């Protein structure tokens, strides 16, 4: 290169200038275009996942204040739990209450679903129970703070031409909001059984829902004897949805008498138990073609690991979600705190959850 003393721009210098100006102009245009896109989509050019997953925590535990603890009937208390901006629920939903001792118990919601400032549940004292109901009755008081999970619904009110409800004792709690939610003119009937009228909660309110009589049959064992299920379930209307919540014996009796084709919805709270703890059940691993027995004092995970040692798991307490598996058949006794309602439909956390019946089929 030779020095160029001439003040006149040479063609080479003109080219360089033009190039620089062009580059600067292009950079400016690119910058503006990029800025506009980034404003609309912060990680442009990445697309967004639809629907997004993050930012919708699945298990937001709430701490609620007990603001009422009152006797509702013999051996039944009603709790009112207050908070702010509580998640809404549909009739049939239940809450998990974490009691001060750490025990977790489930109670059906029986207040107003539209109320986002409080939840209402009712609990019966089970004399020979596992201690949860006694704690609710005797330890929990007005002013106690309780951790609550849910609400969740595994007993939803489906659309049907007519409804038949069978409730035993405290089993009335999930049914009550359903009755209130049924549109005017719906064809429904209810059989409500209990030991004595004094021990049956919400009697007055139920009778008010049936001003003309004829829809509600109340059967108190000490006055009327056993409920006449045969007569009540005879000539079910075509397509009727049958809802039953109550003691195991009542639910079995209803299931037995139901004609083929009728849709039965059951709400179970207590899993089958033996005298001291959980019952044994069978697990079939469909893809591996093996069947295992899960003893009462052990978990599905432990049984599965003997056959499939690479089964993923981690916390073994039902909150990390690593051991979630698909369930093909069987009624699941969910004992985790993590899964959403839709996940609970066809999957379980095998480290803590068990079986409500005698057999589960897993897709593994």
């Amino acid at each position, binding site marked *: 290169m030779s020095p160029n003393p001439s003040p006149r721009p040479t063609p080479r210098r003109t080219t360089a200038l033009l190039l620089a100006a062009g580059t600067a102009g292009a950079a400016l245009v690119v910058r503006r275009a990029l800025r506009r896109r980034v404003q609309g989509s*912060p*990680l442009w050019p990445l*697309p967004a996942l639809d629907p*997004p997953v993050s*930012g919708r*925590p699945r298990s937001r535990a709430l701490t609620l204040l007990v603001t009422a603890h009152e006797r509702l009937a013999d051996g039944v208390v009603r709790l009112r739990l207050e908070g702010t901006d509580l998640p809404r629920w549909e009739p049939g939903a239940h809450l998990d209450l974490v009691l001060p001792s*750490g025990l977790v118990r489930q109670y059906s919601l029986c207040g107003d679903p539209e109320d986002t400032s409080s939840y209402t549940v009712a609990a019966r004292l089970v004399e020979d129970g596992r201690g949860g109901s006694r704690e609710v009755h005797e330890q929990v008081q007005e002013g106690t703070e309780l951790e609550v999970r849910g609400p969740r619904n595994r007993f939803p009110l489906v659309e049907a031409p007519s409804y038949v409800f069978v409730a035993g004792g405290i089993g009335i709690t999930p049914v009550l909001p359903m009755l209130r939610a049924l549109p005017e003119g719906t064809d429904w009937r209810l059989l409500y059984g209990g030991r004595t009228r004094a021990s049956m909660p919400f009697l007055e309110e139920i009778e008010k829902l049936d001003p003309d009589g004829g829809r509600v049959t109340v059967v108190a064992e000490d006055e009327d004897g056993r409920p006449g299920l045969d007569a009540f379930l005879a000539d079910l209307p075509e397509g009727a949805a049958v809802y039953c919540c109550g003691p195991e014996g009542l639910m079995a009796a209803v299931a037995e008498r139901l004609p083929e084709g009728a849709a039965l919805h059951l709400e179970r709270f207590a899993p089958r138990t033996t005298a001291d703890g959980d019952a044994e059940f069978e697990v079939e691993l469909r893809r591996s073609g093996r069947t295992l027995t899960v003893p009462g004092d052990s978990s599905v995970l432990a049984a599965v690991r003997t056959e499939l040692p690479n089964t993923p798991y981690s*916390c073994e307490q039902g909150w*990390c979600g690593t051991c979630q598996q698909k369930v093909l058949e069987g009624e699941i006794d969910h004992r985790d705190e993590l899964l959403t309602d839709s996940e609970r439909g066809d999957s379980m956390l095998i480290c803590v959850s068990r079986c409500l019946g005698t057999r589960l089929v897993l897709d593994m």
Partner: protein
Amino acid sequence: MSNKHVPLKARKVSFAWEDTPLHWVPGDPFTTHTINVLHLLLPAGERWFVHVYKQVLPYIRDERLREDVIGFIGQEAMHSQAHDEVLPHLRDQGLDPTPYTAQVDWLFEKLLGDRTLPPGRPRRWWLLERVALIAAIEHYTAFLGDWVLNAEALDRRGADPTMLDLLRWHGAEEVEHRSVAFDLFVHVDGDYARRVRTWATAFTALVFLWQRGTRFFMANDPTLADGRATFRDFHRRGRQGLLPSTGAITRSIPGYLSRAYHPSKECSTEQAVAYLATSPAAVAASAAEKSQEGAA
């Protein structure tokens, strides 16, 4: 010994965010939002770690490493959940993170997710590539964990104690399990070229995501009229100890690329375990676990 092996165990923590202000480092939105980017990246990112590690379990031939990986999975699952719970709180305060997190979700669920590959070598290659990526990212989570455990400047500035506990509980567990991802990578592969390649990818992606995240928060913060974020802001906070310093970040690069690298040579397990013994969230978690065992 300061870095002896501790068995890994996930802690089920929970945090109440009602009392945490929008600018939880008082008067310093830039520092607040730079650290807040963690809440944007970690829920999807750590969920993805768990997803990948579940698939790698069958390749592990060492019992102790397998136990470590199992503990690691639970800790990461909990980290993801804990940071996820902060997002609704940000939304309540008028700073909706969804436009950003939905894209991070896509990045981890789709771009880095399982691909329809023929079984055998291609599928294994994609798994190893992701395992190596996680090892590189874990180098930085341990770096950040160690930093936040020692970031006394945040305490002096009066940062929100609940947020500090979340960051330090998480940071301490990251320091506690800092060797697992690298050991796993070495166990199943360990190829140096892959380590360099995946480090370059992870580092570039982290820088890209982080600066965009900080800018996103600053621009959308309802209390800031013209929220901007510059490299100078970052460098200055680094010198004040409110954020990791530019120098420390630069020095961590040759660390990971050195052939003699092992995470156990950095950070202090002792400090992490000591923090976990006093962290309000971790202490509450172990108390709840004990009472549950007593009840069962």
